């Protein structure tokens, strides 16, 4: 049975949803409309003159092999960030959940990195792997491994994934821990009495019961990897070497704010908008079905 509340008349409901509608309009519909409108023009950087070019901005983008490559880069990057940060978050949450002494201290310390802004996290990791002064690159060199992420694409990718996942581990840890603690102890104990091993219990009871949280985190992490990581990428690699770490949203940022090509940048936002729309539909239509609430 669903609970429904009915309002008489129309003005009260209108008034109640008005703030949300206004926020949506100001922060979503208006900017999206602007992006779509601007994607049809080729303005000069100063906004002194502009020319209507129809779909030329899109043609320009889709004929650029580097732009097409950035789709692949984005998929690799987002998958790696989401999977690694969620797996580690779950692992740490499972460990912290079993702590008897000092749980609070461990939990606080594990959540700590979340408080660090992406750009700052980028700088932190950059320092550690810096070719001149980095501790990590120094020890890697001592082990005979040449570290130079300014030149080697795979190393650069590894570094931006590491820096982007790091803070997310805390976030995922927090939600997984809450999820784990919400699972009734009695179920686990009953299974244990029946002779199910730890891994058996984890696989057949804990994981399914965590699925709503896992689904939520998957969505949130992919959104994070898609949109909130350009600070990390900007500070560590600026998208290089050879655009091997240029994900879609970073290209929007760098073409728009670094290169002042607002037409192309707007066209890219429109493509991203469509892409995220499709992704959201897929997630809710196909993945959410497998989630037990």
């Amino acid at each position, binding site marked *: 049975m669903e609970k429904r509340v009915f309002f008489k008349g129309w003005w009260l409901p209108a008034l109640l949803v008005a703030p949300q509608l206004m926020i949506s309009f100001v922060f979503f519909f208006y900017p999206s409309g602007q992006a779509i409108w601007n994607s049809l023009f*080729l303005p*000069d*950087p100063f906004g002194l003159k502009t020319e209507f070019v129809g779909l030329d901005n899109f043609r320009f983008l889709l004929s650029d092999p580097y732009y097409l490559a950035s789709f692949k880069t984005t998929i690799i990057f987002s998958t790696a960030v989401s999977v690694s940060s969620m797996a580690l978050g779950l692992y740490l949450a499972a460990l912290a959940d079993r702590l008897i002494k000092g749980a609070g201290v461990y939990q606080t310390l594990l959540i700590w990195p979340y408080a660090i802004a992406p750009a700052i996290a980028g700088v932190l990791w950059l320092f550690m792997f810096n070719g*001149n002064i980095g501790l990590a690159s120094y020890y890697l060199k001592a082990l005979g491994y040449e570290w130079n992420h300014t030149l080697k694409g795979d190393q650069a990718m590894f570094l931006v994934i590491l820096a982007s996942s790091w803070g997310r581990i805390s976030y995922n840890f927090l939600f997984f821990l809450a999820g784990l603690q919400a699972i009734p102890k009695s179920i686990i104990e009953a299974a244990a009495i029946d002779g199910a091993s730890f891994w058996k219990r984890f696989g057949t009871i804990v994981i399914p019961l965590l699925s709503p949280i896992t689904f939520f985190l998957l969505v949130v992490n992919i959104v994070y990897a898609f949109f909130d990581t350009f600070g990390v990428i900007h500070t560590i690699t600026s998208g290089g*070497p*050879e655009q091997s770490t240029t994900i879609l949203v970073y290209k929007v940022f760098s073409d728009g704010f670094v*290169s002042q090509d607002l037409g192309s940048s707007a066209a890219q936002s429109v493509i991203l908008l469509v892409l995220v729309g499709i992704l959201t539909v897929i997630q809710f239509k196909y993945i959410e079905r497998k989630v037990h609430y």
Partner: protein
Amino acid sequence: MKKIKAIIASLALFAMFVGTAAQAKVEIQWWHAFGGRLGELLDEQVNKFNASQDKYTVVHTRKGNYSETLNAGIAAFRAGQHPNILMVFEVGTASLMAAKGAYVPMYQLMKDAGQRFNPNGFVSAVSGYYTTTDGKMLSMPYNSSTPVLWVNKDLMKKAGLDPEMDLSTWKRVGNALDAAKAKGIDMPFCTCWHSWVHLENFSAYHNIPFATKSNGFAGLDTELAFNSPVHIKHIQTLGKWAQEGKFKYMGRRNEAGKNFRAGECMLMTESSAGYAGIKKEAKFEFAIRHLPYYGATEAPQNTIIGGSSLWALSGKSKEENKATAAFLAFLSRTDIQAKWHQDTGYLGVTTAAAKATKKSGFYKSNPGTDLAGIQMMRNKVTQNSKGLRLGSFDQIRGIIDEEMEGVYNGTKTAQVALDSAVKRGNVLLRRFERANK
């Protein structure tokens, strides 16, 4: 309690007086990109100007690095919140020039303000960058440098080389690197700003075009041309050195400067303005040499500049433009320029400043500091060595960076990389032409 009230009242009264006094002065804003030691020196210049007269006040604000400052200025212009003076690095020059109506040309500004100003007082290799083909100066040269070869003499000795040896050609440099590698020197060669040094300056120095139409000076329909056999030969050489571990690539900007200052790198190509930092930090004997060239072409042409110029943005009152003109004229004064040149390693951008510096004996007591100036002015400039004027050039440099990184890590040949950079860069030039026609 009464006392406190009295104090507050008198403070308020005082503030009112100060406020009205300040209002009588015309205040102008200057956005720039200098922090650290350079920022202090810039602040000193502004304070000197503010103290030298009582009509105008200049307020300066740092807006980040060169690109960030330019972008902040452009964004502010769109919003109508722009400063009077904007520092724009040489790469952004073409973008500003094309934006007619966004700035007041320097000659116009000075004329309108009745300010005495002699554009011929500037070193032509510098002012040419900021002057139209029909001789009108659009912006005011501020800091300019040119690439030179920095030598760590101690490492040269360690490599069994004569630290005074001739390093004027890339062939000789190659021999020195071979010797250094054989003796186990970890970083025989490194470079800062690799596109600026090894393609842009390389072209001017060998008197070959970087782009058609006089490197873009003669029109927006210019096309990149840095995939000639001479360019390819040089970039291929750099790639080979990188593969053999003789050249270590540290990054697109001036990252390698740290390695040189720390005494790890034997030979480095970097701006002459690296001087202040190297002099301060290097715990080894260093020397400045001319940028090497290929002996196959006769004597080298001249190198071109990097650095910034100051643009007077439009849409300001007549009074404010007068203040801007007065301040810019002040900056071009010989004593101000000479001090800036000696403190920073940037070139003396007026001939008078260079002369004054020579007279003071500065070059004698700081050997090598005059090389940059000589290298810039050794020949009459040609259409290949005047400088570059290419739209979207910040972006094109990014493309060049990417492609050259492919050569260094061995995934591309120089031919493939430079052809691709030219092709991709031309697309942006056409786009820029279209947006600015």
